[in-house]
């Protein structure tokens, strides 16, 4: 073709240049008098024919949120991909600087909103490290149950929506049905299905109600059956295999270099799991397997997540068996509100109650970082305290954000329709990426 040009629909953006370094695409005056965009000159000589820039998102159901992908296409093949984020920015971290530690917990529901209980607990763990609190044995086991339940819920959403993206509708219905069962359990425990706010610094919002464990046992009994049905629908299905094998391959070195974590990293063959390598909540005393893949493609990520759900069920079974009796909250009036009947009848408890609410628990000066294995990868909470009731700074290490950074690398050279599958395989949640 004689003329080489790129159809410009892009405004100002940063992208990767031909040398792999980020560069700013200049915004210059075009001949028409208006502002037009010049593509980076380094790319020009390499491009064959006519390239087209297209947008996927931000309002596209297959981007799993308000992610915008700008794709440069050569025919159907992706030459370059620029992810744009920030459409869901809520300023959680800034808001947190004006809230007491317990008041931040409702905010953690809303970042990775598929893993609410897990976030609540992870934040509480971070704050407890700051306060120097040892939680009770019952609370530890309850937290493990909560974390693994929300891991299953998150992976179920992942499996269902990825199935829909690739064209398998039925597993979506089955996985959401099971997720409803998990949310029923959360509703019975803390009164909310999605925005749970389940933890408090030093304990949980509430102990599990009577009979709740029966519901959990029923779930643990029936869930593996649904899982194996989904497995039978997908794992050996020629269409599913054809649309996932060999896509978005990351080898172990690349995966480590990009800082991937969670199923994304393990699918590439690196057996890094925070529960195994830096145990918290006594995970080292549980008996489970960390599944790893070999090829690092979309199919391996699917297999790893399926196996993780099975292992989570195993962990929950062990947790039910060892759940001790006793108090859930630590016996420390500095951080925990006294029980209601005491607060309304005893003077001392009443004073603690008022002091706790009006002034808030005060940690010593210091900082803490706690990382947990969230469904999407290693999730960290970092908090700095200056001795007042509110953190000077708190920050989230969102696994989706780091995992998303690998998408330009993964989609390069693949077909446009495979971009959807690769993007789905990262399991992103925009609330966590933009915070």
């Amino acid at each position, binding site marked *: 073709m004689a003329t080489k040009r790129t159809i410009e629909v892009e405004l100002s953006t940063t992208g990767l240049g031909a040398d792999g370094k980020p560069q700013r695409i200049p915004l210059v005056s075009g001949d028409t008098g208006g502002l037009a965009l010049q593509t980076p000159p380094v790319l020009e000589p390499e491009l064959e024919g006519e390239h087209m820039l297209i947008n996927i998102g931000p309002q596209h159901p297959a981007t799993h949120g308000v992610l915008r992908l700008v794709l440069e296409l050569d025919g159907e093949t992706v030459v370059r991909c620029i992810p744009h984020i920030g459409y869901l920015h809520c300023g959680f971290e800034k808001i947190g600087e004006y809230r007491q530690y317990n008041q931040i917990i*409702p905010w953690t529901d809303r970042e990775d909103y598929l893993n609410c209980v897990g976030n609540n607990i992870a934040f509480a763990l971070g704050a407890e490290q700051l306060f120097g609190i040892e939680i009770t044995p019952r609370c530890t086991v309850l937290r493990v149950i909560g974390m693994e339940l929300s891991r299953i819920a998150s992976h179920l959403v992942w499996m269902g929506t990825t199935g829909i993206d690739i064209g398998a509708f039925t597993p979506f219905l089955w996985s959401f049905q099971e997720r409803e069962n998990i949310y*029923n359990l959360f509703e019975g425990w803390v009164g909310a299905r999605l925005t749970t706010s389940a933890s408090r610094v030093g304990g949980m919002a509430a102990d599990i*109600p009577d009979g709740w464990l029966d519901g959990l046992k029923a779930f643990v009994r029936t869930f593996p059956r649904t899982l194996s049905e989904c497995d039978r629908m997908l794992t050996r299905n020629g269409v599913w295999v054809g649309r996932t094998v060999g896509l978005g391959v990351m080898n172990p070195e690349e995966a480590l270099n990009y800082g991937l974590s969670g199923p994304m990293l393990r699918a590439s063959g690196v057996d890094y799991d925070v529960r195994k390598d830096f145990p918290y909540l006594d995970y080292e005393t549980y008996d489970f*397997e960390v599944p790893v893949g070999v090829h690092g493609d979309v199919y391996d990520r699917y297999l790893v997540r399926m196996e993780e759900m099975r292992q989570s069920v195993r962990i929950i079974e062990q947790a039910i068996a060892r759940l001790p009796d006793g108090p859930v909250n630590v016996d420390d009036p500095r951080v925990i509100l006294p029980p209601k009947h005491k607060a*309304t009848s005893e003077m001392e408890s009443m004073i603690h109650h008022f002091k706790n609410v009006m002034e808030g628990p005060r940690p010593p000066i210091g900082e803490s970082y706690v990382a947990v294995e969230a469904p999407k990868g290693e999730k960290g909470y970092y908090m700095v305290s200056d001795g007042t009731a509110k953190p000077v700074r708190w920050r989230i290490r969102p696994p989706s954000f780091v995992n998303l950074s690998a998408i330009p690398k993964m989609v390069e050279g693949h077909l446009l329709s495979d971009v959807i599958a690769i993007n789905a395989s990262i399991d992103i949640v925009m609330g966590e990426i933009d915070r």
Partner: protein
Amino acid sequence: MAITTRVVDRPVDESSYIRATFQGLALSFKHLVDPHKVTVQYPEEKWDIGPRWRGTHRMLTTEDGTAKCVACGLCPTVCPANCIKLVPGEDAEGNRYPLVFDIDEFRCIFCGYCQEVCPEEAIHLGRHYENAEYERKDFIYDLKRLTSQTHPVCEMWDPADPRGE
């Protein structure tokens, strides 16, 4: 007791189109005739919400119909969404009561902290989820509305549910 690593099986070679199609159809038909129904026919059939459900608020009242609230100011302080407006008043005997107690249900995130901290068990979240109104201003629940609602209240953080205190 140990955490071990295992490489997942990768049954790519066993994949097929025709067998998978029939297997999938068989499973789907099995679910079609499964007597265990999960769909709730919503407007006719109501969802059965649990006793700890956190929904729109209610202010409990004493026997003579006035709000139990003593305007202590704990709930406006703890509310993470800053959606409670409280103006305290004092009667001739020095008893405090709320002159204004508005909750903006639009801003409320139903975290339940207000109920958790209330020393008088006055403000409660309700077991209620059908919240539609015709006008925006109707979502600012004032004291009159809060005390006149009748739906059951959330049992968490209440002596009614000792495990949830």
